[in-house]
Structure formats: structure tokens, C-alpha cells
């Protein structure tokens, strides 16, 4: 693999990694608070649909339509995940079933609305989507500048910012300590006066906001319109990144980059001598197989928040 090819590949890999990282951070907030959210995938679909629709409709008249689209995607994600929060926190629903329901709902709802709004199975194609930027000065740094700051999507920097923010919030503030306590020993947290319900609502709604944003980012950078297969399992890969990343923001960043690169490889495989012989489908299924292998290899070593997925019972000892 030549060096110039690698340089060319990095922005593409970062583009694929960005939504994975953001959505996985969403999963982190939710699981740290004690609620499993397997609806990351569905929430990403909702966000992607919202962002694409707003962008298509506003683009002709409004500058920065894509950013407004992302804002709407965040709101749509919060609204959508509030269903999961209500079902699993207030009504003590089985979190996997509730998440599955939302995953089914997202596919149906988005395509239904596409048909109502655009009279087809997908949104209309937007003309620009998210614009690439070149950061002045920083892009002049040799090698690194070309990789990160030249003609790159600004959303990657948003993702990095979110990683830092999440790390600070979850590990360096009293709020974060309480959040983690709710995911580990909610009864103990409650005995210290922490509102377990409130914390878990925050966790789930934050996961909705981030997954919605991730979906918006994904459709506006890697696609030209929203279709039923725009997200194609990225939300599930984000869940896997959370496991690899040991439920830690920097671990999530690393795992997200890893999956981003493996996706980019599928596009560049034909230019790389020793990979060119492999079929395209091999690269399509690679991230999923790697996930299974990693889950198997790290089995027992990576343990998530202890009470995550359990229905909260205030009287349990």
C-alpha cells in the first residue's frame, strides 16, 4: 500500500468512523445510566431521515441548511428515544423488546413519511449536504495537516469534541459519578439521594440526541439522500464499539476509528495489491465478523455497567 493511497484513505475512513463514534457515545450515556438502548440503529434512521428532509427542503433558500438539519436530527432523536425512556423507566418494560420495537418502528415510520412528503420510497436527493472544510494554518502542517485538516468533514471534529466532553462529564464531574452509580448499583445511588429515574432519563435522552445526530451526520456525509438502507447496521456496529471501547469514551473513539478504517478498506481494496483478489462482499461482512470474534476473545474480560439492562427495583438489596 503506497503512502499516498493511505493519505487518500484517511479522510474517507474518518467519514465512516464519525457516525459510529457519535452513536456509540450515545450508547455509553444510556448504558452508564443503566438502560440498554439497542434502538441506536432505529434512532439513527430517524435522525438521518430528519436531517435529509430538512436539508432537501431548506437547501435552495437557506445557507447552512445541513447544520439546521443536524439540529433537527438531534431533536428528532430525543423525541424518539423518549418512547424508550418512558417504556423502560416508568413502565419497567423489557429493554430489549422495547428497543426492538423502536428499531422496527423507525424503518416503517421514515419510509412512510418519505412517501407522504416526497411520493417515493426515499427522500429527494439533496444537492450539497455537508460541506468539506480546510482548516487554515493547521492544514499546512506536514503529513498530519493533509490527513486531518485538508478537505475534511467538520463533523469529525464535532465527534472528537463530543468524546472529550463525554469523558469530562462522565469521569470528572459529580454528575458523572452519579450517572455511573445508577448503572452500577442504583439502590445505593438512590440511598444517597440520587434520582435514579432522572439520571436514567438523562442517559436515554442523551443517547437519543447523539444517535439522532450520528444518523444525520451519516446521511449528510456518506449519502445523497435518505433510504431504508442508509444506516445499514451502523447503529449495531456502534453498540459493538461500545463493548470494545470498554464503555469508555476514548475506547469508543479507538473502536470507531477501527471500524471506520475497515469500511474504507472495502472501497480501496481494488487498489491494494494483496487485497484486490478478495470479493467486495468480504469487506462488507468484515466489521460484523470482527465484532463477533472480538466479543468472543474478550469474553468475560469486558464487563459493562453492572445493572445495565436490569429493571430497577428500589427494594432490591
Amino acid at each position, binding site marked *: 500500500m503506497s503512502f499516498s493511497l493511505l493519505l487518500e484513505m484517511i479522510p474517507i475512513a474518518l467519514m465512516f468512523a464519525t457516525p459510529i463514534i457519535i452513536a456509540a457515545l450515545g450508547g455509553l450515556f444510556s448504558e452508564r445510566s443503566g438502560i440498554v438502548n439497542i434502538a441506536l440503529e432505529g434512532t439513527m434512521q430517524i435522525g438521518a431521515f430528519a436531517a435529509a428532509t430538512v436539508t432537501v427542503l431548506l437547501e435552495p433558500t437557506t445557507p447552512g441548511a445541513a447544520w439546521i438539519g443536524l439540529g433537527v436530527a438531534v431533536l428528532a432523536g430525543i423525541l424518539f428515544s423518549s418512547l424508550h425512556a418512558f417504556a423502560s423507566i416508568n413502565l419497567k418494560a423489557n*429493554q430489549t*423488546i422495547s428497543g426492538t420495537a423502536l428499531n422496527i418502528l423507525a424503518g416503517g415510520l421514515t419510509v412512510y413519511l418519505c412517501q407522504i412528503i416526497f411520493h417515493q420510497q426515499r427522500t429527494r436527493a439533496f444537492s450539497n449536504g455537508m460541506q468539506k472544510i480546510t482548516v487554515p494554518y493547521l492544514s499546512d502542517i506536514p503529513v498530519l495537516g493533509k490527513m486531518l485538516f485538508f478537505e475534511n468533514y467538520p463533523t469529525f471534529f464535532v465527534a472528537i469534541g463530543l468524546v472529550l466532553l463525554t469523558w469530562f462529564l462522565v469521569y470528572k464531574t459529580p454528575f458523572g459519578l452519579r450517572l455511573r452509580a445508577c448503572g452500577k448499583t442504583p439502590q445505593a445511588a438512590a440511598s444517597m439521594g440520587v434520582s435514579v429515574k432522572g439520571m436514567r432519563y438523562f442517559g436515554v435522552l442523551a443517547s437519543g440526541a447523539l444517535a439522532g445526530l450520528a444518523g444525520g451526520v451519516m446521511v449528510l456525509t456518506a449519502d445523497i439522500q435518505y433510504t*431504508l438502507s442508509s444506516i445499514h447496521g451502523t447503529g449495531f456496529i456502534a453498540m459493538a464499539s461500545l463493548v470494545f471501547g470498554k464503555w469508555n469514551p476514548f475506547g469508543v473513539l479507538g473502536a470507531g476509528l477501527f471500524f471506520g478504517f475497515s469500511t474504507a478498506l472495502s472501497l480501496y481494496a481494488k487498489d491494494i495489491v494483496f487485497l484486490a483478489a478478495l470479493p467486495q462482499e468480504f469487506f*462488507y461482512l468484515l466489521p460484523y465478523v470482527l465484532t463477533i470474534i472480538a*466479543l468472543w476473545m474478550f469474553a468475560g474480560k469486558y464487563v459493562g455497567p453492572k445493572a445495565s439492562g436490569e429493571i430497577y427495583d428500589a427494594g432490591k438489596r
Partner: protein
Amino acid sequence: MTKRSEKIVLPLISVFLGFFIGSIIIIATGRSPAVMFTAMIRGISGLDIKGELPFNPRYIGEFVVQSMPIILTGLSFAFAARTGLFSIGAEGQLMAGSLAATAVALLVHAPKFIHLPLVLLAGIVAGALWGAIPGLLKAKYNVSEVVVTIMLNYVALHLNNYTILNIFGSVDRVKTAEFSETALLHSPFLESITRNSRLNWGFIPVIIALVIYSLVINKTTFGYSLRAVGFNKEAARYAGMKVNRNTVLSLTIAGAFAGLAGAIITTGTFNFGRAMSAAEGYGFDGIAVALVGGNEAIGILFSGMLFGMLKAAQPLMQSQGIPREITGIIQASIVLFVAMQFGIKMVIDKLKGHKAKPESVGEGAAT
């Protein structure tokens, strides 16, 4: 409410609320829900008052065809759920089954009474093997079956596409050559009595599967020990039951049901193997079917027919301006309401005047 009536009443309320939400969405987007209900009634009864024929059995045929695979994926989810496992893998197991059935249909040449059973068996075995993977990982290494089954769905999809497109001398790069008559579930007789619907003999293995499910779960020691593991793993282990073996077997058998569904779709509804851009959702349909059916054979039969009816009504709704995706919305709402059972129970009991106890949904389904 007694436990028994709860098992019937709560799903019915969920179904009712699901259709209620669906109707609201249809009205909110300026359509009439009456169109949907007319289409559904036409689907099960064949009655078509406005059409050229007042009674058209073709609709009934299509309704049965739509119900067959989702009853099987429902059995698949339910079998795992009875052992306390949450398998989202029916989609991939179905695809593995369909791929194996395609292979046997194309590569084996034999008279029908050997070829056809062999095709179905291939589907069953492939689905079972695909289900055994998460089973082994769960039993030996305690890896979450939820994540593994989801990942395997995508692996199966791409594996299927690669094989179909590259190995079987494909046509138009989307499907294989057509199967020989000996591999097919097609029946000119069934087609003729239902005015050329796609109805085929596939319903016979479906009925057999329902009976087997019911017998194994309710009437055998093995089924008893599976359910025991589902209720309380530690207690079952203490009582000397082989928890790990049951976990593997449960997911394997669940895979077998889904694999059979794949074989039936490939050699009944179609007569060639297909490459697909995305999964077709039979696996998720199955989750809804099993949850509404209370993981019981008879419940799964009825809820499978209910969702089959919804699917069969799609084309008519689409032609009258209601996007077909409304069925997915209704289905998801029903599942969400099933998940919210505790809340529904609370409301009912409040109306009756006593307090509800929290309880997890779906007999020991894993979290």
C-alpha cells in the same frame, strides 16, 4: 386478572392499541383508515364487493402465503425465549436456510419425493448451524446472544449475496437459474383453486412445525428443562439440568425453524435463489408474532395470521394512497405495547381497584 386470562387479554389490548395508533397516523396524514380495514377483511375472506368478482379466493391464498414464513420465525424467536434467550437472529438463519435450500435445489438431481424433502432438510440444517454459533458463544463464553445474532444477520446477508452472484451461474446478477420442478413446493392444484395465487404446499411443514413446537415445549422432559432454564437458570442448574447444553440446543432448534422458513420462501414463493440489498424483515416480523402470541404454539398461529393479513393487505393499501409501511408502524406499536404490559396491567388493575406487582415481560426473556 388471572394469569391465564392475562395471557389472552393483554396481547389483545396491545393489538387494539397498535391499530389505534396506526389509524391515527393514517388520519394525521390525510388518508382514511377504512381503506386499511377493508383491505384486511378482503385478505382473509376473499370478499371483494367493489371488484369484478364478489368473491376472489386469490386473496386468501396470498394471505396464507404471507403468514407461513412469519409463523416459523415466530416459533424460532419463541423457542429461544422459552429458554430465557433473546434471539434476533431469525433473519440471518432464514437467509442461511434459503441459501442451503438453493444449493441443494440446483445441485442435486433426484425424483421429487427425495429432492424436495432434501431441499427442506438443507434449509433446516443450515438454519440450525447458523443458530448454533450464538448458542455456543453464549454457553461457553457468556457472549450476549443479542449482539451476536444481530451481527450474524448481516454476515448471512452478504454471504448469501456473494454465493448467489458468484457461484450459481446467476441471471441478471440478482438471482440464480430457475430450480427444476422436483425441488419446488409449487402446486398447480392449489394455484387453480385460488385463482393463481402463490399458495403452495409450504403450509404443511408449517403445521408440522407448530405441532412439534407445542409437543416439545409442553409434553417432553427436554421442553420442561428448557423452560426451567428460562424461568431460573441457577435453580435449574442446582436441580441438575444441563444449562449450557440447553442454551446451545435452544438456539440451534430456534435456528432450524427459521431455516425452514427460508427454504419455504425460496422453493415455494419463488423458484430461484435471490441476492438481496437488505434483509426483508421476516425475522423482526417473527419477534412481533411470538410476543403477541405469548410464545405458545396456538397463539403464534393466530398472531402469525394477523400479521400475515396485514402484509397481504399492503398492495391494496398502497394502490389507494396509504404507504405500505403503515404495517411496520402498526407492528412496532403492538410490540411496544406488549413491552409496556406492566403499564397496561396497572391501568386495568387501577380500574378494578387493586395494586399491580412489577414483573418482567415475555416469560423470562433475557435482558
